Structures are given as structure tokens and as C-alpha cells.
């Protein structure tokens, strides 16, 4: 038990690394996904095919293979990154495809008739976007975004393979140097579980604060998280 307590500070530090890497990647991924969806809506004719290709490629391949390409493959072109940089970059790109699809579904959930009605009343495109589409789409998206952020946190464990000193790497290090297994692995599972539960609780709070939330889609998504 004493041994276990002695490990807690190291795990707390590693948890911060996991949180930092995955939250930076998630923020970049949300921004990227939002931008991708906005561009796809604005330039539908030109961008539909490249957008589809991007989403198909990213979602069809395991994150680990993408990380390997970025970390070990890109140096061939002279693009060299540290393990942490490669993780953040590849995780952000990976997540952006998923976030873009969430925003796409969110925008599709706003009935077209509302925009046509707004147009008929002379509401500008920007005002309609800000006051009609955005609030409803965000209300739809928030639970799904939270779910995706949890997936990003879990996916970040893969970074241990390229020696990013996050939770999984730290647990493996402790196991290798002390030959104790149960303590470090128990702490590893508990640490991840606490992180993902915290995000899911925060998301439920955030969801409760946004209006327009009592649609069937959101209730289904809440159940899923």
C-alpha cells in the first residue's frame, strides 16, 4: 500500500502529460473540424470530393498507423518532430476528421425550412448562421464532441509506443524498473477512468447549460456517453 501511494505523484505528473497532449489535440481538432465543415458548406461543389477523401482516409486507418507515418515516415521529407509534437499533430489531424463529421451531422440536423424562412424575412446569411444555425447545431454537437474528446484521450495512450512520457508509458516504465505489476497497472486503469469520467461529467454539466437541448438526438447521445 505504501508502495502504491509512493507512485501517486508520478502518475499525477503523467496524467497531466496525457491531459495536455490530448486536450491540445482536441482543441486543434475541434477548430480544424469546424473549419473543414464550414469550408465544405461554403464551397460544396469543389470541396465535397476532397472532404470525403480526407474523412475516408483518416477514419479508415488506425491512429497508430497514422502516428507511425508522421513520426517515422515524414523525416524522409525532412519534416522531423519530437515524439510529443508528432503525437499532437497526428492526433489533431485524426480527431479533426471525426469532429468535422460531428459538425456535419449537427448542421444537417437544423431543418432547411428555417433558413428559407429567415431568407424570406430578409435576415442576412450571417445573422441566420449566428442566431439560427449555430445555437441549434452546437446544442446537437456538444454531447457528441464530449464523447469524441474522450476517444482522443484514450487514443493518446498509443503515444507511449513512441516514448511520450504519458500515463501508459509511465506505468510500463515503473513495471520494468520495479518488477511490480498489480500496483502500477491498477493505478493506470484508475487514472484513465477518472480522466474520462471527469470529462463526461463536465460535458453533462455543459450540456445542461445550453438551451434547445431536449431533442431526441441529444437524449440518445447523452445515453451513449
Amino acid at each position, binding site marked *: 500500500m505504501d508502495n502504491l501511494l509512493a507512485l501517486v505523484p508520478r502518475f499525477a505528473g503523467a496524467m497531466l502529460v496525457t491531459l495536455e497532449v490530448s486536450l491540445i489535440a482536441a482543441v486543434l481538432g475541434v477548430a480544424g473540424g469546424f473549419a473543414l465543415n464550414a469550408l465544405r458548406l461554403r464551397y460544396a461543389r469543389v470541396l465535397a470530393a476532397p472532404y470525403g477523401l480526407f474523412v475516408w482516409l483518416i477514419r479508415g486507418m488506425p491512429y497508430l498507423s497514422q502516428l507511425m507515418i508522421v513520426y517515422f*515516415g515524414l523525416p524522409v521529407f525532412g519534416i522531423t518532430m519530437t515524439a510529443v509534437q508528432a503525437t499532437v499533430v497526428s492526433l489533431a489531424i485524426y480527431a479533426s476528421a471525426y469532429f468535422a463529421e460531428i459538425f456535419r451531422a449537427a448542421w444537417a440536423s437544423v431543418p432547411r425550412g428555417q433558413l428559407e424562412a429567415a431568407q424570406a424575412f430578409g435576415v442576412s446569411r450571417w445573422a441566420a448562421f449566428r442566431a439560427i444555425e449555430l445555437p441549434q447545431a452546437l446544442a446537437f454537437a456538444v454531447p457528441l464532441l464530449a464523447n469524441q474528446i474522450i476517444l482522443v484521450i484514450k487514443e493518446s495512450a498509443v503515444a507511449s509506443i513512441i516514448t511520450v512520457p504519458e500515463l501508459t508509458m509511465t506505468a510500463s516504465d515503473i513495471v520494468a524498473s520495479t518488477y511490480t505489476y498489480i500496483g502500477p497497472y491498477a493505478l493506470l486503469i484508475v487514472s484513465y477512468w477518472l480522466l474520462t*469520467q471527469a470529462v463526461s461529467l463536465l460535458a453533462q454539466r455543459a450540456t445542461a447549460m445550453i438551451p434547445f437541448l431536449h431533442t431526441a438526438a441529444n437524449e440518445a447521445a447523452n445515453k451513449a456517453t
Partner: protein
Amino acid sequence: MNAPDLLARCASYLPQLLDGALTTLRLSAAAVFCGFFAGIFIYTMSASESRLLAGAARVYVSVFRGTPVLAQLLVMYYLPSALGLAVPGIVAAAIGLSMNTAAYQSQILGAGFRSIARGQIEAAVTFNLKRRQVLWHIEVPQVVRVTLPALVSEMIDIVKASAVVSVISVTDLMRVGQQLSSSTYRPLEVYTCAALFYLAITTLLSFAAHCYERRAASRA
């Protein structure tokens, strides 16, 4: 680096990558198959009247969905060997992935079970069918029909998640990629080839699910 050379080299990787892909496919199929039955078991636990069983099912699902597959696999592989019961990597991988997908499948199947009209089960009980007969002959066939697209997308997720079994020394597609990369010193093309193999598998699976959905829709 000209194109014919590149193609010739990629072709030379094919046999080994194909071998790895077969391991990945077998492992994922075994995990999804076992996870299906385990998922039904967990769902029946969570739907039971016993609060203890229902609570245990909730904890199981929460832990497996709330932690990374990689962490689960490390535990499955190293913990038994620490307790004096060494398991080969492939067995640990199969058990770990099965237990992981069981948690997700219990949720997918649960939605299917809830979609069945209560009247059917009441009618079956009236006809003196046993609980087990009702489950396997009345509920499960309908549940599979309704949830098949979701189960296929779970299979896709497991194929992708299985890439991390390379860490517990299973020679799957990803591991073959790592071996080829360190023997050829051409990480970019090797990892890209491996990734394209994954893409082919996941695309075929999602195409199959798409066809099934269209057929089901045209029949309805």
C-alpha cells in the same frame, strides 16, 4: 526514387503484409464473435432485477469504455504472467479485445433488445417457452437483424483498435509493418502500405454493411 522501383518494392512487401493482415482479421473476427456472446451476457446482467448484477454490469461497461484498449491489453498480458500464469500474446490479445468489444456490444445489443415489442415475450411466456428459449429463438435473431450495421461498425473499430496488439508481441499487420520498416529502412512507404491494408479492410466492411442496409431498406 522513381515510380516503377517504388511499386516493385511495395509489391515485395505484399506477402508479409498479407500474412499480418490475416492475423489482424482472424484476431478481430474472433474477438467480435466472442464479444457478441459476452455482450449478450452483460446485457442480460444489466437488465436483471438483481441490483448487484446490474451494478456489476454497469461497472464493467464503464471501466472498459473509459480506459484505452492499449492499457487493457497490457494488463491482460503482463498481469497473468506476474501471477505465474504466462499467456501467449495472441491469447491475451484475443481475450482483451473480446472483453473490450463485449462492453460496447452490450450497449449496441441493449438498444436492439429494447426495440422488441413486449407483447412477443409475453406471448412466448404464455406458450410456456423457457426464458432461455425466448432469448435465443425470439429475441436474439431480431436483435441481430436490427443491430447488424452497428455491429459491423463495431467490427471496424476492433480492426483499427487491434493495431496496438503489436505491443504485446502479436505479429499482426502493424507489427509486420514495424519489422519491415526496421529491415528496409523505408518507414514511409512501409507504414503507408500497412495503413492502406487497414483502409482496404475497413472499407470492405463498411461497404458490406451499406449493402445490407440498402437491401433491408428495400425489403421493408
